[in-house]
């Protein structure tokens, strides 16, 4: 089974993000980058699928050459090879999907895994867009998956319940927390990763269809106030919850 995983390098979630002078991007200076946490579920699911059904796992990203490090992490976890499509600009979701779909055609995968969203821009578009461009079936936000010879059954949480959908391969699966427990690479994996193929090629994404016009940090939280003590404070608390916070 040919398995492809699409991954992205994102700022670590504990980084302090500063908005750049242009007000449309963030300042990458001093920010630590990591593999998108949801993509770890994707890599793990790909590896588990390979362990159960055989095949190869390829990881692919579109990004700067710094993403080599994250691809090596995937290789250390157990992926067989990696492809880095380099580009210095900030392509939008449509452009990213178009580049990734184009390259995917060469690999003719049976299954494509990706995170349900990247935690930097939260767009969550790349998976479904790639599926559309390739004409593949697609299941999003999947937290339980079974793969048959040429079928899949995916379960996802929906409002107030769970939904199970079935389809035929080839398919794109976007991975949600709960799907699996991503493994940590071990020393042998890290050493082996250095010897696995990591192909790099320049990409020329099509023009963006959307443009980021403004980026703002969240509003400062107001200072907390102490309403009083014991039973005496309850009426004020209820009043505030009803009229200020409007949660009751």
């Amino acid at each position: 089974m040919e398995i492809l995983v699409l991954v992205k390098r994102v700022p670590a979630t504990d980084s302090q993000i500063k908005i750049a002078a242009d007000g449309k991007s963030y300042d990458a200076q001093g920010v630590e980058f990591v593999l998108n946490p949801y993509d770890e579920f994707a890599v793990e699911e790909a590896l588990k699928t390979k362990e159960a059904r055989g095949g190869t796992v390829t990881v692919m990203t579109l990004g700067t050459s710094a993403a080599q490090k994250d691809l090596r992490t995937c290789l250390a976890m157990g992926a067989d090879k990696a492809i880095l499509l380099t580009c210095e600009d900030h392509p939008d979701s449509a452009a990213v999907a178009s580049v990734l779909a184009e390259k995917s055609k060469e690999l003719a995968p049976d299954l494509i895994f990706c995170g349900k969203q990247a935690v930097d821009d939260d767009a969550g578009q790349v998976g479904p867009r790639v599926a559309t461009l390739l004409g593949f079936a697609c299941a999003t936000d999947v937290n339980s998956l079974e793969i048959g010879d040429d079928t899949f059954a995916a379960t996802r949480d929906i409002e107030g319940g769970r939904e199970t959908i079935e389809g035929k391969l080839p398919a794109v699966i976007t991975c949600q927390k709960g799907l699996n427990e991503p493994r940590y690479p071990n020393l042998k994996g890290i050493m082996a990763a250095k010897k696995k193929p990591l192909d790099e090629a320049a990409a020329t994404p099509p023009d963006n269809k959307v443009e980021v016009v403004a980026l703002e940090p969240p509003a400062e939280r107001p200072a907390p106030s102490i309403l009083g003590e014991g039973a005496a404070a309850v009426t004020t608390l209820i009043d505030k919850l009803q009229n200020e916070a409007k949660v009751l």
Partner: protein
Amino acid sequence: MPGRLHTTVRSAPFSLYVHCGFMRRMARRIDTYLKRLVSEEKFDFYSVVRDFADAEISPRILDWERDHTLVPDDAIAKMGELGLFGLPIEERYGGQGGDHTDLVLMGLALGYWSHSVAITPGAALSLGAKPLQLSGTEEQKQAHLPALARGERMFVFGLTEPGRGSDAANPQVTAKKNASGWVINGEKCWSTNAKWASHVIVHALTDPDGRNGRRSTCLIAPMDAPGVHYQEMSGKRVWEQSSTGSIVFDNVQVAADSLLGEEHNGFKVMATTLNGGRLFIAALAVASIAFALDKCSTYAEEREQFGAPIGRFQRVQDVIVDLDIAVERGTTWLMDLCGRFDKGTLSRESAAKCKVDCSQVASDLLVQAMEVCGGVSCLDEFGLIRHHNDLFVTRVGEGSNYALRDLIVRPLRS
């Protein structure tokens, strides 16, 4: 104004990042030094163990402490999945093929949160598997190393006895030869990992008339052999999550092929093993001050007294600087000595000096670190008191510092 990207805050539950190991509670200053000292590959490995410890150990350690439990089986199993129990075992025996530097890096990464957790694979390897790697026959290695590497077996280092601590070359435990091998009698104590052990390497008196250092023999005894009795030592208030047992041998028969190394030359097996073990103990000491440095420097920025952060007091800064110096010096020293241990050129004195000095400096500095943080240092959840207690072991374990000075002085005497 620095802030988080709106989207990042909203996107995923906090637990996801903790789970993925992405929510690091404190940036570790020690990483800056290690990055300069070791190859990228080694630093990557260290980072994996560090992230593992941040995600899987640090959130649970306080519960284990308050419940007075040993490292739970599932945590040991997870360390096994990570390959830690096979770390410096050769690949041909199913290990990870790492070296002593990797082992010490693991000690630095895990010991930052808990000596007890770090010493579990640490002693299993540096004291349990190492004598077999150094002195075992090919048959013995094939019989045990693969299972040790998988974490299915664990060896205990049986050197110390109730009556024989620093004077370890002259055990009171005896082994007498008979037609089917050896019969062991006596008691070992302070045996780290005894609870989980499959075998114990017994250092036993075999030739009372031999010259000093040539009176004993090492034997590999299965923990389930008839006559072996293990009991967890109670009342230990250091390394609380680590298993420390006393093991009694009551006419225990072991086979002839349980001989490890040469007959009557068992102390050599133990002593060469201890060189590497002492570096691991030094690593735990350095890990503690690495933790204290991060904790203290963060707290000194946050805690305000007299209208400003306490970090503006020079006395407080002095302690932070001393911690920083100790971390940079300790890591540099350790990495150098690990390299020599792997090449087989590390002298006993050098290993002993590093253990003596790192443990002493760390435990002295840790008290000062607690003092600059004040009363909060007394609380278990602040973490410093754990390191304070645990650091005591680094002063007496694998050779009491005072006794080791006797060894260190030898080349200085004419």
